[in-house]
């Protein structure tokens, strides 16, 4: 393990987080729950002036319900039917679903659908989650595999993993529970049709924003993902161009990457990060966790993919300058940096990273947000690779 290097305090500026969010923006929260995952994606405002949200894992009790309440109090969210169209329990490890039963008990009336991989786990949180779902029969239950796509308002959610061949092996103990993880790509805007008076036309969208949420998928599962969602970008053949049109985007390219499995040594590899080419690589880990995440091997893979120095020598730039951020890190004044939020505009011109200074057992203080003033790596990418391009 290599503990994250403290980030210079002067790279943060206290500002009004909520004022940064425009109606068309998407907000991604990676909540600090220590060695675990809680993710909350607030979708862009829809025509009725309200927003919906997607939950991906609830790794601890109390923290996410409190965040949802804060967002409702601040009027970013509205208590409404279908507020949360999808809740994903990526896989049934405690650090991903320990808070799920409580969340469903408290917020289940606003949830439409629950996704889980279909891996039976005889843990208290798994069985209590199923009990909570039984108590909310209005929640549709789904076990997605790779390729499944759900359009939710202005975003498209694509399931990257698990591949069906892995899914079919769960019950034989042939698959590590981490490799049952549901990995997702969230892409926006999903709209492609423009209404002009009484006419409509197809939009040839030039730029979309992508977030890849890696859950705890490890090498076996990512190998299948790279097979299913092969990179198309280097190939400019007519077939590749047609595929890009058909698929709508380079399948794995994304601006924000939630690094799998808390950056354990089995959770990420160089090629995967090279394919994603994220501007932000986000790692959920405790300051001093039981498993000593993040692992140096994973950290170096991410750094090398973002800044290749293996053949030229020399040190990498600091993690924050490479866009790598940890929930468990501190600033140089010793203050915890805590939960992360990224405010993204559909065009990609705005991609602001915020920190809230909370410890794992503390609520996310929305009023105490600090904006990160570091570089946006996408500015360094060649123009044609800076954004997903739909031909």
């Amino acid at each position, binding site marked *: 393990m290599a503990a994250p290097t403290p980030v210079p305090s002067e790279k943060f500026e206290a500002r009004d987080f909520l004022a940064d969010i425009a109606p068309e923006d998407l907000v991604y929260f990676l909540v600090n729950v220590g060695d675990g995952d809680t993710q909350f994606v607030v979708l862009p405002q829809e025509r009725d002036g309200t927003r919906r949200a997607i939950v991906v894992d609830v790794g601890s009790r109390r923290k996410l319900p409190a965040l949802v309440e804060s967002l409702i109090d601040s009027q970013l969210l509205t208590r409404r039917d279908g507020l949360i169209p999808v809740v994903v329990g990526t896989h049934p490890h405690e650090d991903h679903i320990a808070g799920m039963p409580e969340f469903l008990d408290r917020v289940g009336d606003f949830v439409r659908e629950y996704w889980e991989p279909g891996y039976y786990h*005889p843990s208290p949180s798994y069985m209590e989650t199923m009990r909570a779902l039984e108590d909310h029969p209005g929640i549709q239950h789904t076990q997605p595999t790779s390729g499944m796509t759900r359009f939710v308002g202005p975003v498209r959610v694509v399931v990257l993993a698990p591949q069906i061949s892995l899914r079919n092996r769960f019950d034989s103990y042939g698959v590590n529970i981490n490799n049952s993880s549901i990995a997702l790509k969230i892409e926006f805007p999903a709209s492609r049709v423009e209404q002009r008076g009484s006419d409509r036309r197809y939009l040839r969208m030039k730029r979309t924003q992508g977030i890849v949420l890696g859950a705890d998928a490890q090498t076996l599962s990512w190998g299948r993902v790279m097979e299913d969602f092969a990179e198309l970008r280097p190939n400019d053949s007519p077939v590749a161009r047609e595929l890009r049109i058909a698929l709508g985007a380079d399948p794995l390219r994304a601006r924000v990457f939630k690094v799998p499995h808390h950056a354990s040594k089995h959770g990420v590899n160089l090629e995967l990060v090279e394919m994603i080419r994220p501007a932000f690589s986000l790692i959920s880990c405790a300051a001093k966790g039981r*498993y000593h995440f993040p692992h140096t091997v994973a950290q170096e893979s991410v750094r090398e993919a973002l800044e290749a120095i293996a053949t030229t020598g020399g040190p990498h730039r600091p993690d924050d300058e490479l866009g790598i951020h940890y929930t468990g890190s501190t600033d140089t004044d010793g203050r915890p940096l805590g939960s992360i939020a990224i405010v993204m505009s559909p065009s990609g011109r705005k991609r602001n990273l915020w920190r809230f200074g909370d410890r794992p057992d503390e609520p996310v203080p929305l009023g105490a947000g600090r904006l990160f003033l570091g570089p946006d790596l996408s500015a360094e990418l060649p123009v044609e690779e800076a954004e997903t391009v739909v031909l």
Partner: protein
Amino acid sequence: MDWSGLDTTGLSYIVVDEIEGGMVGLAVSDWPAQDDKGRLRFDSEPVQAAVELVELERFLALHRQPSQERPLRVGDVFAARTGAPTTHPEGWIEPPIHDVTADAREAAKVAFYAAVAPIIDT
């Protein structure tokens, strides 16, 4: 739930939740009660403990009942008396250690199917 006839009074429910880098993550909770629908209920939040894999396997080889020689797997469930967890299992898990994995996996399937499909009344 019969738990193969085991008297579970005072026992803890111990699940192997994660095996990572030579460490084993255990979720330890009070023994579940059953509600009026026959559902297992875990009222308290499980304590997450980390123990050394090698030490736990050695400890289980001595005290697991019924005795089995197989590697530890995620999803294994044990019943035993416990104290405050440390990384050394012998310091807080009191033998004998009853392997209730088969019953627990069936309980998980019961919980799952009761949630996703209608229950058949007989």
